[in-house]
């Protein structure tokens, strides 16, 4: 330690979030009398300009050379306050953050004294650590000016294009045989009423013609190693099974049919297929998951197709995860789905209308439809104890955001194409939050749609009508706006507005080490401050992999992700936290225990040095290869090695402060 510690301690009220439970003034008073503390203040909101300025002023005027802040979670504002101390001329690592909100005031709201005692001990521990803080420099490494974008839907395409337009190279990988993702399954999209496939087609053209974008279709990410700036990626590209020369002929000769998932199994397709006219690539692909291995007739000869998968390896500086969502599929029997033929999802109805564009009347399973009931919030806003659990034992308690407008947009489409339909809309709340979305609600109202509000605890019930009845299904609902009056609505078709679900990407999540939120979608660091970054450096989120979004929001998120990638890799260098192992050469006697314990290649080695004319062995760390795990720390018999910024001595000092009785801490006043 180069200078005597002069510690500034700051306890944040967090606008009442902390101070409503923790007696912040008492905490500050105890801290003020701790050894080496030169100033202890409270502040209503330390992250505000005024709060930060106060810290800067204390550093400049009082000579504060260590800063301890008790505030919200470090994951939210640690970067903010590092920048604060840097602005005042202090090394960013001479600052320590104590979480007093998520880990104290918010979890001990009924125990103000307990929460205050805890704050005192945690802040004392922070001060104890601060005494041992040393200035550190970030590790600067060369960065590969190439990004990987995982997912060829609208978010992945947009992100890839934006990154490439800023001069970086991009590799775009798509697991399925065609680009476009879920958006390709839509027809007209709100709020502009444009054709989804045409919009996509324009975007895809730009992407595939871009000189800095490489597109890998039918490709999976099977391995990820390395770190921000230099991720090693293993890809596995499945064979297309056909060539430009024989593709169409093989498709024509193929006789194996399977349900067409592009149309939600409403239709069938061949096992060598194209999902829709105008798709990219235009070349048909073999559906390896369903191909039965039987021979296919080509020019009079029998051909057996084989998936000749090809591995690839590449190095990228950053990774954009744009893996999208899965549409919610109701359980069998949920609102009669899967049991009653006249119950469909909104996504199915969209594909049905796309497949029958010229239909003069709406038919479902051969029956002319006159009375339609739309049900909102299917698989969304579920309540534990009321709704059935999903396969993972949880309920989808989140709002899927897009289904309200999508349902009202569909109502407008139905009224336009099939005038005279009676439509009932059963909703909990109408959430048409975007520009131009409310117009669909007004349009539905003016076209005579009857809205019935139900409570989430008392969802509508869909049952089969008695034989000979005028309608095949009956919908029972309690109208929350008329004191739960029970209504029975006869219907020819019930349309379930199903929400979005997180995709099953467990392997990818494991490889990337990214976190999921309570809703199981991928989790950003902070919804407002770092909305597209994950806790893993260089792994960025784009689109509905992160949560329900409409197309407009997906594109916004994709462009934000691209901007992050460009700012990260644009200079060709990345900065890593300096939390790596460091050897105290004076204590090291070259036992080699650290080298034996280390599992990271090239991170630590014994080198022969000459000291006082004698050859000695000393451990030497290569910072770029060190993960900072500290396996070397626990095995060193001389305590000659530590992880910078997280030393054993710091932890011992923190434990001592926590173990101290409050009476001792108070007596220090």
């Amino acid at each position, binding site marked *: 330690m180069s200078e005597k510690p002069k510690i500034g301690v700051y306890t944040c009220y967090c606008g009442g979030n902390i101070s409503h439970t923790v007696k912040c003034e*008492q905490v500050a*008073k*105890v801290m003020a009398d701790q050894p080496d503390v030169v100033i202890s203040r409270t502040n209503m909101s330390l992250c505000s300009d005024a709060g930060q300025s106060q810290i800067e002023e204390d550093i400049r005027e009082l000579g504060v050379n260590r800063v301890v802040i008790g505030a919200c*979670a*470090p*994951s939210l504002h640690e970067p903010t306050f590092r920048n604060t101390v840097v602005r005042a001329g202090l090394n960013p690592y001479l600052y320590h953050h104590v*979480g007093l*909100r*998520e*880990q*104290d005031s*918010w*979890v*001990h709201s009924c*125990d103000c*004294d*307990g929460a*205050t*005692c*805890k704050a*005192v*001990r*945690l802040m004392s*521990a922070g001060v*104890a650590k601060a005494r041992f803080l040393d200035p550190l420099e970030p590790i600067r490494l060369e960065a590969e000016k190439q990004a990987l974008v995982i997912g060829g839907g609208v978010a992945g395409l947009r992100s890839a294009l934006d990154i490439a337009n800023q001069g970086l190279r991009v590799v775009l990988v798509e697991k399925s045989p065609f680009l476009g993702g879920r958006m390709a399954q839509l027809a007209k999209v709100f709020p502009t009423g444009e054709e989804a496939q045409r919009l996509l087609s324009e975007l895809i053209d730009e992407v595939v013609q871009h000189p800095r974008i490489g597109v890998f279709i039918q490709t999976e990410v099977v391995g990820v190693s390395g770190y921000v700036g230099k991720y090693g990626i293993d890809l596995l590209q499945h064979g297309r099974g056909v060539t430009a020369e024989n593709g169409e002929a093989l498709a024509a000769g193929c006789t194996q049919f399977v349900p067409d998932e592009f149309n939600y199994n409403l239709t069938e397709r061949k096992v060598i297929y194209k999902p829709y006219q105008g798709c990219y690539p235009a070349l048909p692909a073999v559906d390896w998951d369903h191909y039965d291995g039987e021979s296919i007739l080509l020019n009079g000869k029998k051909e057996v197709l084989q998936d000749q998968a090809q591995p690839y390896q590449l190095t990228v500086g950053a990774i954009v995860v744009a893996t999208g969502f899965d549409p919610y599929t109701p359980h069998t029997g949920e609102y009669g789905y899967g049991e009653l033929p006249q119950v469909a999802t909104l996504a199915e109805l969209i594909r049905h209308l796309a497949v029958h564009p010229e239909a003069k009347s709406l038919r479902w399973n051969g029956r002319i439809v006159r009375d339609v009931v739309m049900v909102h919030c299917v698989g969304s806003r579920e309540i534990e104890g009321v709704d059935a659990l999903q396969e993972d034992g949880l309920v989808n308690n989140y709002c899927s955001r897009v289904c309200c407008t999508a349902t009202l947009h569909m109502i407008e489409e139905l009224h336009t194409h099939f005038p005279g339909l009676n439509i009932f809309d059963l909703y909990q709340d109408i959430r048409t939050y975007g520009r131009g979305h409310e117009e669909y609600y007004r349009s539905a109202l003016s076209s005579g749609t009857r809205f019935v509000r139900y409570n989430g605890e008392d969802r509508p019930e869909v049952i089969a009508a008695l034989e000979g009845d005028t309608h095949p299904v009956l919908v029972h609902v309690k109208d929350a706006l008329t004191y739960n009056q029970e209504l029975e609505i006869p219907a020819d078709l019930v349309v379930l507005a199903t929400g979005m679900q997180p995709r099953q990407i467990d392997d990818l999540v494991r490889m990337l*080490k990214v*976190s*999921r*939120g*309570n809703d199981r979608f991928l*989790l950003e660091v902070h919804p407002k401050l770092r909305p597209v970054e994950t*806790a*893993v450096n260089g792994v960025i989120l784009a689109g509905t992999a992160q949560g329900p979004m409409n197309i407009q929001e997906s594109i916004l998120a994709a462009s934000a992700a691209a901007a992050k990638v460009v700012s990260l890799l644009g200079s060709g260098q990345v900065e890593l936290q300096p*939390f790596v192992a460091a050897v105290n050469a004076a204590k090291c006697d070259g036992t080699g225990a650290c080298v034996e314990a280390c*599992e*990271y290649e090239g991170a630590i080695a014994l080198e022969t040095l000459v000291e006082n004319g004698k050859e000695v062995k000393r451990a030497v760390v290569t910072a770029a290869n060190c*993960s900072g*795990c*500290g*396996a070397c*720390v*626990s*095995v060193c018999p001389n305590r000659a090695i530590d*992880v910078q910024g*997280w030393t*054993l001595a710091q*932890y*011992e000092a*923190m*434990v*001592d402060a*926590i*173990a*101290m*009785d*409050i*009476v*001792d801490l*108070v007596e220090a*006043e």
Partner: protein
Amino acid sequence: MTDLMQKPETKILILATLAGGYAGADATGQSHLDYPSNTYILPVMCPVMFPPEFFIRSFERGIDGILLMYSGTDSPYKVEAAGTAKLINQSYELMKERGIDIRRLRLAAICTVCVKPFLKEVNNMHTLLKGIGPVSAEIKPQQAEAQRTLP
């Protein structure tokens, strides 16, 4: 300040990994779910850095229970799962030698959204300590004496 001084309690130290338990504790906070306030959470990169002597020292200084909340096999560090388990086993041996109840030290895999498991571990340790009392009852007096002094 008097009211604070009248808070004798056992102390639970929670060493929680940034990639797992610490984020899990934050998630618990975001859900505003209460748990006992005698819990002191310190962030760690990877618990494999702590030698067994660290835990013994912590007990000797007056920490009554230690929860090591790590990421298990989901850890970003190659050595975390196996390495930490090995160190904990070594720590148990030392605890037995010193007459410290080994239930005072517990390793638990807690993920970033493991709110319920986090609460379960904390409440279980709190209940255990209520039953077996403070660590000072198990440690020789001369070792316990050290707990009131700062370094």
